[in-house]
């Protein structure tokens, strides 16, 4: 059975849930083989792969995407995988682009589902035009390269994978960009935005005070998001921006608080299962697509909802 390469998305010694989900997709097409950059971690057993290719030797002062792409290309050259699955985040796309040129292979990005056609080839599902269309597409030239979004499948059981270690030495071409400083933002206690089941987001209507949004999010065990307006105003960090130029999310529940619903925000959350909006303006565009719209001031509605949620959830 052909290998399906899956690039692990690491978080220190942990591996993100999205990697295990992608591995579950990979299993539909072949034998999942994990590419794990930065040394072995026991978390690799939990993602459900048959093989782990540990990549060592990429120095901290080297920009990761070109060096990782080079390592993945080398492993792909040895194994001849039937597909290469990468995370859909910023670095995943950069790696996908470099691999595409290197391997002469097509890429489909932001995949939300992957199914075999009658001949077993992967057909990818994507969202298009701000979530208003579902598109099915495939790679027709070269080894299919796909970047997969969180939530595409349910993770499978843990395995006892075979481990192969590759010590690499990034080429001159792959190490021309020097990283002089790297700051990993502290994770915080809330779920990661891209993977959260429930998200509570704040916009212009917060007037810069996110405490009510955060308190309600914590009452629901939810992630906190922000609109571009709130981020541009400096009220909340950029990493929490939901929308076209921030994170694209698709949670079970999205609670938009004081967010009018600019097209670029809708593009980032319109595929959420349920949308709830709290807004003073009943004419705000977000109200037209919310499953529940509460017309009111978030600074009074949310504290009450927070108290109620604590009561109901015990």
């Amino acid at each position, binding site marked *: 059975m052909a290998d399906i390469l899956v690039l692990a998305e690491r*978080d220190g010694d942990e591996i993100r849930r999205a990697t295990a989900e992608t591995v579950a997709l990979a299993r539909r097409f072949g034998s999942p083989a994990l590419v794990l950059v930065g040394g072995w971690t026991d978390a690799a057993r939990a993602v459900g792969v048959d093989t782990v290719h540990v990549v060592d030797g990429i120095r901290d002062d080297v*920009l990761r*995407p*070109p060096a990782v792409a080079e390592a993945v290309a080398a492993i792909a050259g040895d194994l001849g995988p039937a597909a290469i699955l990468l995370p859909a985040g*910023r670095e995943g796309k950069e790696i*996908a*682009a*470099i691999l*595409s*040129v290197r391997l002469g292979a*097509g*890429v489909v*990005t932001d995949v939300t589902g992957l199914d075999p056609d009658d001949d077993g080839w992967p057909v990818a599902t994507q969202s298009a*035009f701000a*979530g*208003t*269309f*579902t598109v*099915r*597409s*495939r*790679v*027709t030239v070269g080894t299919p390269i796909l970047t997969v979004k969180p939530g595409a499948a349910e993770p499978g059981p843990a395995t006892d994978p075979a481990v192969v270690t590759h010590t690499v030495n990034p080429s001159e071409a792959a190490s021309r*960009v*020097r*990283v*002089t*400083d*790297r*700051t*990993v*933002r502290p994770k915080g206690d809330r779920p990661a935005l*891209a993977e959260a089941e429930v998200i509570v987001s704040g916009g212009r209507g917060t007037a810069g005070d996110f405490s009510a949004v955060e308190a309600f999010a914590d009452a*629901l065990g939810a992630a906190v998001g922000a609109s571009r307006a709130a981020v541009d105003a400096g009220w909340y960090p950029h*990493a929490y921006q939901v929308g076209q*130029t921030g994170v694209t999310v698709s949670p079970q*529940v999205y*609670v938009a608080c004081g967010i009018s619903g600019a097209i*670029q925000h809708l*593009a980032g959350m319109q*595929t959420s299962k349920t949308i*709830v909006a*709290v807004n003073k303006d*009943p004419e705000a565009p977000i*109200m037209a*697509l*919310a499953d*529940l*719209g*509460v*017309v*009111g001031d978030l600074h*009074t*509605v949310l504290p*009450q*909802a927070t*108290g*109620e*949620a604590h009561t*109901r959830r015990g």
Partner: protein
Amino acid sequence: MKIVVLAKHVPDATADRRYQDDLTSVRSGIEGRLSELDEYAIEAAVRITEAGGGEVIVVVMGPDQASEAVLRALQLGASAAVHVTDAALHGTDAAGTARVLAAAVRQQGDVDLVLTGMASTDAGTGLVPAMVAAHLGLPHVGFVEELEVADGSVAGARETETTRERFAVSLPALLTVTDHINEPRYPSFKAIMAAKKKPVTTVGLADLGIAPDTVGLAGAWTAVESVRRRPKRAGGEVVKDDGDGGTKLVDYLVRNRLI
């Protein structure tokens, strides 16, 4: 300093965007514009040349109506433009676009810096910049939020979802900037008038030495099998907060087993 900015003409995000029979997106009859995220790259380039001299050449690939984006880029301060247009380009995917844009950059001779926006606002794959860099053999840095050019090199900072990295790279290089790098200017009346006199070169595939069958739908490395419009989200219930808005909100979530 010679800077090339790669930019795209896109359908307006508020337009009724849809697909035609060959599963490419409808462009005619739909209001188009310079992709908003490209304005940041143009602004970054113009600021560099305003400070240290040089020229900014914007390259746009697209059908005739993409000249709207070309004009806008010139109004925003680019000194000259190349409009790559050819009937054979209809349906070109990211891989093909990158080959064409790389050829257009090569045609400019010695270029110090290539800048792009972080993604287009229509297809938004975000693949093209790193692909172009790979074709040109240039180092690539994506998602740049801060940059400074000095003594033949660029230093700055880039952001991924979890990490901020400070970087340095010798020129030439290709950088992709985000919407956090600057505040693009509104063109002045003078800039709008001046743009009309700036040189625009229109080139086809033959001028770039690209065979027509390697691009377009036939030359694409990916294929769209089907497109389906999602059922439009119907607005649901709207309730007014009469002192019980928060309770109603949580009621709704509990009733629908969402929490």
